């Protein structure tokens, strides 16, 4: 085992707790806990939003997908970043000006409807759990892969650290923690990448897709995990150990879905429907993620919300340059992952695989692992804050008079369900669930926000109908994909990447039902629109 690993991970945990405790000195009132008193500067805020957003799916999953499928999955990082552009263009400033704190608050401010508020609360809790569960699972799997420890302990440790940090520091502390974790994650990918590229140069720039097929760069031992057929001819059994010498060709394994050669290098393997569905889900889903929205209330005004979003877009874009490189270099240095199918581990394993087991390789390996831990911690902290905020205001009904103790209770309640689930469910596919969370968000809150902000004619009945049909259809597709039996391939694309039909459906139903119930438009819609769109300098 890597001797630098344990100290590195403990350092990250201690720093997280220490920065949280430092932030605690400033957190005195309930509003400090919830929105950091709205006095966080845009650069801190932007780093915090980015730190919160770059989850395990971004840090580990994107590189793994690139390693496996190649150029077609580059739409994931592009979409994850472009989501902030959609947020900037259509939502950021008006949403901040609405003065609401959570998505259910926005429903209340804009449409004054209690049933809609409850429905939105249900969606926030669903998306929050759908997103929190894979974070904890990812943490557990990383711990067990790297340290040989048990999966449950990894998930439990991360869950307890995050819950304690949120409960005792609230959002004020979390802002500092998140901002620190963005820079940690960027460093953890950027510094090893410099050494990896130097190593690739000194190895004589080996080709990523050699014409004769991929070869092992060094002697490698692979343990077969499932019964399979190698290269379509040689059957192997689970548990069998295969030895390869340096220069041996990498066989294809029948149970592992991966692309090779031009299929990997050139676009077009994924169908157009699935590609556009993915683009739609990621571009429009970001604005509907509860932990992303909640951050915007910490900006002092609409204009600074806009600037913050722009900085976030730049920070996130900068980060997403790196996972692609890991996936590409993984093709050269860790081809055995294409045989085991454990491609999500490429970021963790690449430094040691490429730089050797010396001090440098191990140190950099520990650094990327620390970054992965930061990814789990920051995203789950943000999610927990937002879900706890919704439980605090809507389920416990504490309202304005709510005490800090109630917020702590809400935090523990919010952590309980996903943690319990994470301990019992370990075989759900991490990056897939995250993508589906985007699809649900894009089909529910995206139309609600965009129409609510830009169209006076939206009614509560229309919003409810749109949420139920569009969001409900996406939710059903998620449940079928994750829990249901494998579907026939023509149909699987339709359900597995539902955004291309659920998003338009949600918009259409919302507009159609609103037009039919035009009498229900709130009488004060003019005042609300003024509040959403007029610059703050005109208020007083």
């Amino acid at each position, binding site marked *: 085992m890597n001797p630098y690993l344990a100290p590195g991970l403990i350092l990250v945990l201690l720093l997280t707790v220490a920065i949280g405790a430092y932030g605690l000195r400033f957190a005195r009132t309930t509003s400090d806990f919830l929105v950091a008193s709205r*006095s966080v500067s845009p650069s801190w805020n932007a780093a915090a939003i980015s730190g919160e957003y770059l989850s395990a799916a971004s840090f580990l999953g994107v590189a793994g997908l690139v390693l496996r499928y190649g150029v077609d999955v580059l739409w994931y990082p592009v979409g994850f970043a472009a989501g902030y*552009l959609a947020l900037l263009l259509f939502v950021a400033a008006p949403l901040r000006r609405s003065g609401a704190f959570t998505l259910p608050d926005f429903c209340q401010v804009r449409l004054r409807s209690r049933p809609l508020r409850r429905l939105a609360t249900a969606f926030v809790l669903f998306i929050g759990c759908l997103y929190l569960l894979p974070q904890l699972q990812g943490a557990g799997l990383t711990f067990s892969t790297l340290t040989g420890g048990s999966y449950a302990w990894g998930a439990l440790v991360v869950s307890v650290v995050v819950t304690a940090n949120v409960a005792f520091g609230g959002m004020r502390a979390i802002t500092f923690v998140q901002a620190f974790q963005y820079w940690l994650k960027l460093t953890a990918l950027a510094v090893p990448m410099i050494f990896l590229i130097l190593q690739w140069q000194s190895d004589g720039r080996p080709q990523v897709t050699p014409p004769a097929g991929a070869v092992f760069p060094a002697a490698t031992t692979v343990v077969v995990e499932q019964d399979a057929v190698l290269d379509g001819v040689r059957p192997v059994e689970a548990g069998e150990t295969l030895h390869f010498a340096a220069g041996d060709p990498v066989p294809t394994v029948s149970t592992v879905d991966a692309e090779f050669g031009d299929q990997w290098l050139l676009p077009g393997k994924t169908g157009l429907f699935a590609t556009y569905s993915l683009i739609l889900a990621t571009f429009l889903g970001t604005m509907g993620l509860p932990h992303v929205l909640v951050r915007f209330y910490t900006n002092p005004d609409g204009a600074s919300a806009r600037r913050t979003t722009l900085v976030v877009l730049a920070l996130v874009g900068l980060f997403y340059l790196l996972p692609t490189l890991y996936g590409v270099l993984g093709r050269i240095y860790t081809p055995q992952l294409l045989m085991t199918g454990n491609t999500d581990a490429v970021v963790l394993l690449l430094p040691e695989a490429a730089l050797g087991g010396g001090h440098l390789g191990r140190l950099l390996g520990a650094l990327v692992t620390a970054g992965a831990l930061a990814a789990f911690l920051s995203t789950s902290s943000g999610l927990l804050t937002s879900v706890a905020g919704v439980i605090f205001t809507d389920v416990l009904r504490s309202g*304005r008079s709510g005490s800090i103790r109630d917020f702590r209770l809400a935090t523990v309640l919010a952590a309980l369900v996903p943690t319990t689930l994470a301990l019992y469910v370990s075989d759900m596919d991490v990056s897939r669930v995250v993508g589906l969370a985007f699809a649900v968000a894009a089909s529910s809150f995206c139309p609600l926000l965009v129409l609510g902000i830009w169209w006076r004619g939206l009614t509560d009945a229309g919003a409810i109908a749109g949420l139920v049909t569009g969001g409900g259809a996406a939710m059903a597709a998620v449940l079928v994909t994750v829990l249901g039996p494998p579907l026939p391939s023509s149909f699987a694309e339709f359900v597995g990447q539902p955004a291309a039909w659920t998003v338009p459906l949600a918009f259409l139903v919302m507009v159609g039902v609103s037009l039919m119930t035009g009498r229900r438009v709130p009488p004060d819609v003019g005042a609300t629109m003024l509040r959403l769109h007029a*610059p703050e300098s005109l208020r007083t």
Partner: protein
Amino acid sequence: MAADPSPRSRTRVVLADAAPRRDGADRAGTDLTEQTPIGEALVKGLMRAQLALALRLALVVAAGLGTLPLLFAVAPAVGGFKVFGVHLPWVLLGLLSFPFLVGVGAAYVRWAERNEQDFAALIRRPER
């Protein structure tokens, strides 16, 4: 309670607005709401300007990025084109798409703020 280390003033935070809002409690731009017909037209104008700007830039992104899958499907030869030894789709998606998005975002922030300044100037002028 000890003094806050930062001298910045604290704003009141509106948490769950669970109770129906009292009339007059919303101080947001009372000036404008009172002069209803004109004020409403002005706000509509601002909204239209901002929405048109957002939609135009969204169209730029849709044309710049959104057409790429279609292009790669219709003309596979584009995918084989190389820039400095790297295939074009990798350069476009893995590298250039991010500065492109940031550039569009920066343009939006600048123009959206200008729209707001124009609006503010329009509102303030009659008072002076």
